[in-house]
């Protein structure tokens, strides 16, 4: 297990190094002069030069990279060119709302997917199965930038139950969380169904049934824990999609998270903040995947032994 752990952490380290380098290079794909793009055509040469020095763009590329990495190690992400605030502080302010939204969406996805997937697996080929898989197919096809406005149209405008946007109280969390969680729920319910179907054919399930155990107990006690393993992996992998989806969802609902900050910074051409946002989201994704892998190793002894 220790070898597996070390191997996995070393891989994650190199991936993070590569991600940081990619993010560093992002500012260099801006067509023409990035400083000119940030300050606009009417900027004075002195201002351009000052900004170039502030961003370190006057240095050779390798030196810029070393500087970027050094600053990153010291958690110094620079200063927002728009608000003049420390980017680390800016990110810290926006991380909370994104985390709340992501956790709420995840909970919604699990609450929908587990019963739906189980129902479909237990009644394979029935109407329940078809309804559940229909929901799943539809859920994957509906993009969140349409789902959001649709929910606003129904629950905020037509029924007046929930606020259109903002971040005041639990009521304003419901619509963004449903918007973000539905696609994941659709995918997960499919995964829960196939995973359960696979487990339900195992000998120990037949043995449990032969001992006269109730169907519910067989599912909850014996099938679910074993079916959960592949689902956890998919969940970890899909969290990335959730974080990327948050960029759009937060924009629709004016949710003050990292996603909204990313889009606002793109619109303001505040490139250092864009870089920092992409970096934070990707780092979170890599860490979550690492944790998922480690959890998987801990939950399933076979994985540990194979390594």
């Amino acid at each position: 297990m220790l070898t597996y752990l070390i191997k996995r952490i070393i891989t994650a380290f190199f991936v993070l190094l590569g991600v940081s380098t990619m993010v560093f290079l992002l500012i260099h794909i801006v067509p023409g002069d990035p400083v000119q793009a940030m300050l606009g055509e009417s900027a004075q040469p002195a201002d351009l030069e000052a900004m170039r020095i502030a961003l370190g763009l006057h240095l050779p590329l390798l030196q810029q990279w070393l500087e970027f990495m050094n600053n990153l190690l010291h958690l110094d992400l620079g200063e927002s060119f728009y608000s003049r605030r420390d980017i680390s502080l800016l990110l810290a302010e926006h991380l909370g709302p994104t985390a709340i939204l992501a956790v709420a969406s995840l909970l919604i996805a699990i609450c929908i997917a587990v019963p739906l997937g189980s129902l479909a697996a237990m009644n394979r080929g029935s109407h329940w199965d078809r309804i559940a898989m229909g929901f799943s197919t539809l859920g994957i096809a509906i993009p969140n930038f349409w789902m959001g406005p649709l929910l606003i149209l129904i629950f905020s405008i037509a029924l007046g139950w929930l606020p259109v946007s903002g971040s005041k109280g639990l009521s304003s969390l419901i619509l963004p969380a449903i918007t973000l969680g539905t696609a994941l729920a659709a995918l997960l319910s499919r995964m829960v169904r196939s995973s359960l179907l696979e487990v339900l054919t195992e000998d120990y399930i037949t043995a449990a049934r032969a001992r006269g155990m109730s169907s519910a107990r067989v599912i909850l006690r014996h099938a679910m824990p074993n079916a959960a393993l592949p689902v956890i992996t998919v969940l970890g992998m899909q969290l990335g999609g959730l974080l990327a989806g948050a960029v759009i969802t937060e924009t629709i609902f004016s949710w003050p998270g990292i996603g909204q900050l990313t889009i606002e910074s793109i619109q303001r051409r505040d490139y250092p903040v864009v870089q920092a946002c992409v970096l934070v989201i990707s780092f979170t994704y890599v860490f979550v995947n690492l944790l998922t892998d480690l959890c998987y190793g801990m939950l399933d002894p076979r994985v540990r032994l194979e390594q």
Partner: protein
Amino acid sequence: MTVRFSIATTVIILWCLLALLASVLPLDPDRIVLQKILVAPEWQSWLGYDDLGRSIVDRIIIGARTSLLVAVCVVLVSAVTGTLLGMLAGWLGGWCDHLMVVVLDIFMAFPGILLAIAMAGLLGPGIINAVIALTLVGWVGFARLARAQTLGIKQREHITAAHALGTRGWRIGRQHILPLIAAPLIIEATFAVSATVIAEASLSFLGLGVQAPGSSWGSMIREGTRYMLVAPHMVLAPGIAICLVVLSINLLGDRLRDILDVRQTVRG
């Protein structure tokens, strides 16, 4: 299953036909009629008019052209590049393969379309930049699949035999490996088309794709969100178009997966 598949095929054919005939049909997507601003669907215009009094039907058809064009361009370039790089890495092995694995891992560490959003944002708004951004992200899936498939196939006897007979590497790749790995790649490409349709619409929704007065389903939804209270049809029509197309392509992909039976093909 057959009915569903027939409906899906019809929607895809209709989408392609509308997109291809968009420049021939008598459409006027940019014509502003002030008397028709935010008018709900009516007989003359089935889907109503937008905030500038432009026909939504016409704009949906032009949007179909945008989404098809972007999807075809992105998937074609991504598929060719990704397959070539993946096959090359799998075939050569050694440090070349290790390097490819590292590059793929790095690209895959960027969740979803986040990298495309950042790239499109930094390159500047516009459809060409959106295509570039989506292609830079899109090749990864194909490369990963092509590499894995090539690794599995290159040890087979007929490849060893071809190699022993002195057949050149590129010829082995083209004639002996590519046909065997084509099935999973075609399926991947099908799902990539639907993912690209959503990705392009997402970028346009965020204001990073098609710019005014151009028309994209994503930008139409974006414009519509401002008038949801008085003109919900502005949001509903393009959304239904996206869902129908994506749903149909996904159903086609599922069907293709069943027909081509990937696992059987790979195991041979």
